[in-house]
């Protein structure tokens, strides 16, 4: 097991290098002119800015040299300057990352809860209308375009019924709490402002649900399949013969045996959540990495696009690694065997 972990840790830097290389290749194909990937149209007319950019990225050198400089810059945290915000991309991304993390984590909680519950219901009431309904609900969630669902729910819950707040992380009139972690929920708590904390939670509900419903489908399918297999096993009969009630049998005995693959799938759905976050943030005006990427894409802000892509890739890589390792650790046969 240790060897597996070590092996994964060692290949990590190479994969990161691969990510950087791929990103570099993208900059070379941008509009046919590598300069266009670094200097905005406006700046093109400014000879000083152009000269500075050329120096920083070695544009006058050969391709391999440019690559090395690129990697070097990236490793030291220099991802270029955003055309739109005029700030270093690295700074922008780091500033907006926590908002995305908050949304994705909330979505994972919502999605897992829905997915596990639906999967359990579907397995326990196998082949009854409840099963079919649960499966349909899950399928529906993974078929509906996230951006459309967000719009639709915003319209219904916020505009028409006024139950849930509109886009954004907080009431636009509220004063932001001092930024500690970048997580609105945590920061408001740390500032001792309970009302603001509630507001932050309230604003989190809709986007988290929209994003989470999508992964709930995948999770529920897996939980259902696993539960079906487990519920057929002999120890379930033993538990019943001991006099255990159905709820106890399902939760204490069956569910605990499906935990490991379920957690794995939850970990892997992180990828889908990152993807969906891009669109969800746009709809809900959530100031995270996703909406940053969208603004960058719309505005052809190449340093920002590439920057977000690299960071997204690294985050994705790390979460996959954590999930893989956690699976190996948690699997009692591997752990104790």
């Amino acid at each position, binding site marked *: 097991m240790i060897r597996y972990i070590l092996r994964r840790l060692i290949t990590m830097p190479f994969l990161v290098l691969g990510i950087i290389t791929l990103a570099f290749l993208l900059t070379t194909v941008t509009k046919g002119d590598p300069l266009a990937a670094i200097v905005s149209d406006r700046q093109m007319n400014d000879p000083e800015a152009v000269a500075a950019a050329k120096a920083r990225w070695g544009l006058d050198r050969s391709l391999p040299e440019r690559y090395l400089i690129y990697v070097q810059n990236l490793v030291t945290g220099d991802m270029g300057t955003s055309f739109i915000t005029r700030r270093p991309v690295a700074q922008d991304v780091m500033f907006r990352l926590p908002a995305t993390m908050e949304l994705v984590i909330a979505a994972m909680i919502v999605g897992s809860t829905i997915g596990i519950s639906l999967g359990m219901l579907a397995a326990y009431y196998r082949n009854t209308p409840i099963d079919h309904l649960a499966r349909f609900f899950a399928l529906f969630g993974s078929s509906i375009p996230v*951006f459309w669902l967000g719009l639709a729910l915003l319209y219904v819950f916020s505009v028409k019924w006024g139950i849930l707040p509109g886009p954004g992380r907080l009431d636009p009139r509220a004063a932001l709490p001092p930024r500690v972690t970048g997580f609105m929920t945590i920061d408001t708590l740390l500032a001792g402002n309970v009302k603001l904390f509630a507001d932050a939670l309230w604003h989190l509900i809709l986007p988290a649900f929209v994003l989470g419903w999508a992964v709930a489908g995948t999770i529920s399918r897996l939980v259902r399949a696993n539960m079906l297999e487990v519920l057929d096993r002999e120890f379930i009969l033993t538990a019943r013969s001991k006099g255990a009630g159905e709820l106890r049998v399902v939760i204490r005995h069956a569910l605990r045996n499906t935990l490991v693959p379920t957690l794995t799938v939850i970990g892997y759905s992180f990828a889908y959540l*990152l993807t969906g976050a*891009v669109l969800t943030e746009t709809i809900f005006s959530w100031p995270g990495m996703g909406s940053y990427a969208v603004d960058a894409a719309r505005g052809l802000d190449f340093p920002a*696009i590439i920057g977000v892509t690299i960071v997204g890739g690294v985050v994705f890589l790390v979460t996959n690694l954590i999930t893989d390792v956690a699976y190996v650790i948690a699997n009692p046969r591997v752990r104790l065997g």
Partner: protein
Amino acid sequence: MTALTLSSLRRAHWISLPLAIGFAIVLFWLAVTFLAPLMTSYNPLDMVGRRLQAPSWEHWLGTDALGRDVLSRTLHGARHSLPIAVVVVTLSVGIGAALGAISGFVGGVFGSAIMRLVDVTLSFPPMLLAMAVAASLGPGLENATVAMIIVWWPVYARLMRAQVLEVREREHVEAAIAAGASKPRVLLKHILPLCWTPVLISATMDLGQVILLAASLSFIGLGATPPTPEWGSMISDGASQFYSWWVAFGPGLAILTIVLGFNFIGDGLHDYFDPKSK
């Protein structure tokens, strides 16, 4: 001789209800792809009515901000989304399966190199990578198509390689090699035919996912350019016309139904090949 009816197929356990519904939906949209011009009298690109009209008898799904008929644009949207999805999946499968099969069969440095490329590409969240590639290449549906192929082919490469690795160990392959068959022949005639099933099932389900991805790209402006009636960009228009809900309703419903259709097919195929999980 029982009639070849829906119920007879169901009783023979060939198809289940979700599978049937899925097929029906997909067939419907296939028909729309070909017959859209015949199904609606309005030209999707022309202004045919007052702007932002709510759904009415003349315009079943209302009109958008430029006075175009939403229903007609929705139906015509299929003529863009479906062919693109088919192209993306076909080429991704073609490239990915080929590379994956070679990598699995030949192995060696070349095989490893391919797999490293696959690993790196799959390290990106698909949407972000697609966005980055599409942005670098410039707006337009063709570039978006290329971006999607770049994002998707590694999936099939990995899948095909796993299949080839497994089938390679089977006895009839050993027998063929022992009988003197050349390597390409072994791969093509003995290994590949057994590898196709999971790839095909995956590809079928991915058609829906590609449609979603294409719509997402168009939504943020990286796919279709106006005035093309592509569903994603139509929803984007609808987002700016928030209070005229019908503008986004048509295309959204279209995407939902067709992806649901493909998901039903996928689910049905899963049940068919693994009835234990029913």
